[in-house]
């Protein structure tokens, strides 16, 4: 009889090739996603005069630098055009299947992988992007890596890793109407801190997690990195299998049924123990917004910005003063009195069809008081949203409906928040300058961004949903 194991223990064991005396293990990689930003790694591989080990397990997506407007013509910015060209040359040279700028399957890598059925339970998945934690929503062991590790995976399809500690976050209860996975994620991050899960693999469990759709689970696992976690994980279940069935790259027919049988065993044993346990009750989670410059600066919308004068710890008080100064928010200000200049709906965190529906449910028949951009998570999501008429709701409210990419979450394709502007955003990082130099970001759910848009200030979405279908 073997000892009880958690899900991460099982995934680790399935992929461990060799263990060194110092504790490092060589792990097999089932899927490797690359994007335009992976160019350092391709250069490292070429510098060693090496070629790719497993092109059929590697997939490319153009997302970080791609323009979200005017795709029919050539890319205007020569530096960005060079990044996309370089990506296309790298994937072609290495015989990697890629969803490039004009491919109908193009989108954000963490939306496209699951959408195409490339992301599956039980896989070890890596990508040179910290939000690779997203794929853990399927019960995959998925984490972000740097360029040297990307190069190592390209050359060997393996990676040296040290086993993460195990953290169990159980969210029971039922989230109220208008409360989404983003609110649960921000509540968790506020609770454990932006570095609270450092060195840990987080397994999310409990009734409120089971009730989430795959889109919601992806949002939650995506944000694991904002709590400092190495990865986020949710054991696969019927919701997972239903999502995956008949996607382009998932097993077909009997193979799918056999896969589901194997995937069903991917759960923590009932008596397995974790290094750390955290519990939250979804019943009491309110819509949450960030006020400061790290994702754990998060508060319920009916709250007030902190007042450094009331903070006893001088280091913390200084942090609060600096963050409030950068954000141009008076100490103790009521959060719903913070006016905004712009909204953004998009990013690997919140740009899937369910996110767009949630925002559209608030925006329908209402005008946005500020300009804003909506960038769907993938070109497939964009088409589906257009079939459902969501694009018209966004346009009629005054927001811009654009193509898919990382866009204004990281600003490297030119979609930026201007210096000093305040943006209500569905993204993942409210870091200083993240959306552009001097930009001020408030993170929240798509429904809450829509509420801010129609109000012109941070606002509670719940009254705006009264009498509406959500």
């Amino acid at each position, binding site marked *: 009889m073997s000892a009880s194991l958690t899900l991460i223990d099982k995934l680790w064991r399935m992929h461990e090739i060799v263990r060194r005396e110092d504790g490092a293990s060589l792990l097999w990689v089932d899927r490797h996603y690359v994007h335009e930003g992976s160019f350092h790694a391709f250069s490292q591989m070429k510098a060693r005069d090496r070629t790719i080990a497993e092109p059929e397990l590697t997939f490319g997506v153009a997302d970080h630098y791609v323009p979200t407007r005017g795709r029919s013509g050539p890319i205007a910015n020569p530096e960005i055009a060079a990044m996309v060209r370089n990506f296309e040359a790298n994937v072609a040279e290495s015989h990697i299947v890629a969803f490039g700028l004009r491919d109908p399957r193009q989108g954000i890598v963490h939306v496209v992988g699951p959408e195409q059925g490339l992301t599956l339970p039980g896989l070890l998945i890596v990508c040179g992007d910290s939000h690779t934690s997203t794929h853990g929503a399927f019960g995959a062991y998925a984490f972000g890596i*740097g360029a040297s590790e990307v190069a190592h995976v390209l050359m060997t399809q393996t990676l040296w890793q040290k086993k993460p500690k195990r953290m169990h976050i159980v969210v029971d209860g039922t989230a109220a109407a208008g409360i989404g996975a983003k609110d649960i994620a921000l509540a968790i991050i506020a609770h454990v801190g932006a570095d609270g899960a*450092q060195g840990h693999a987080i397994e999310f469990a409990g009734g409120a997690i089971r009730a989430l759709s795959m889109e919601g689970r992806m949002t939650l696992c995506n944000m694991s990195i904002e709590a400092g976690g190495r990865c986020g994980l949710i054991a696969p279940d019927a919701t997972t299998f239903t999502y995956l069935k008949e996607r382009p790259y998932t097993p077909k027919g009997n193979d799918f049924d056999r896969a589901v049988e194997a995937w069903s065993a991917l759960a923590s044993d009932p008596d397995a123990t974790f290094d750390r346990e955290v519990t939250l009750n979804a019943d009491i989670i309110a819509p949450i917004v960030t006020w400061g410059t790290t994702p754990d600066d998060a508060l319920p919308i009916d709250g007030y910005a902190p007042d450094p004068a009331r903070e006893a710890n001088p280091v913390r008080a200084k942090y609060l003063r600096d963050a409030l100064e950068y954000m141009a928010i008076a100490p103790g200000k009521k959060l719903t009195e913070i006016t905004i200049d712009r909204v953004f709906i998009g990013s690997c965190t919140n740009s899937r069809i369910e996110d767009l529906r949630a925002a559209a449910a608030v925006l329908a028949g209402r005008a946005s008081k500020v300009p804003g951009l909506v960038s769907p998570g993938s070109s497939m999501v964009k088409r589906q949203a257009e079939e459902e008429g969501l694009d018209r709701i966004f346009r009629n409210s005054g927001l811009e409906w654009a193509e898919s990419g990382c866009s204004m979450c990281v600003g490297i394709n030119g979609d930026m928040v201007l210096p000093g502007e305040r943006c209500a955003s569905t993204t993942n*990082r409210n870091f200083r300058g993240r959306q552009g130099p001097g930009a001020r970001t408030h993170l929240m759910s798509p429904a809450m961004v829509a509420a801010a848009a129609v109000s012109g200030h941070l606002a509670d979405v719940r009254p705006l949903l009264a009498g509406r279908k959500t």
Partner: protein
Amino acid sequence: MEKFVELSAKACPLLLSNLNTDQILPARYLKWPRSKGLGAVLFQDLRFDGDGHEREDFPLNQSRWQGAKILLAGRNFGGGSSREAAVYSLYDYGFRCVIAPSFGDIFAQNAVKNGLLTAVVSETDVADLAAAVSSDPGRPINVDLVQQVIVCGNRTYAFDVDPVSRNQLINGWDDVDLTESHRDRIAAFRTEHQVRRPWVMPAKA
């Protein structure tokens, strides 16, 4: 990769917490090849104001900290984005060691692959070290990775480092060469894994 065994150098204090990789190297420089000089844009938006003028209160702009190879940093240094160019930027500026109470996981992994030591000490110890070097900015401190200690004046501070990272830095190991030595086991694993779990292979789209 350059080995790291021991270093005596000037240490610059920058005790802000949560200095994420977006602060270390803003995203607009990510398209630069390393040869373009990423060290010159290290902490760009903290070092310069909106008009491109140096902020006098930022330590790297002060003459007393020129030539520092050790950075004393706050909690959760290097969290956020996985951009390895943040490490290139620190290294190419001249830093060989960052001492902080905690580091972002991916940043710490990237650092070791590039010969940059991330040494973990308590918040009290990093504040102590910062106070000591601030009172005598010319004085070097000594970081000994073999003994895992930092010596500053007559005081010695133990530091934590992941044993895997320590091994790699001291030996200057190259990951790819090391992996190559396990080639046969990798090949055997691959076959067994894919036969036993046929679903791990992408189906024909």
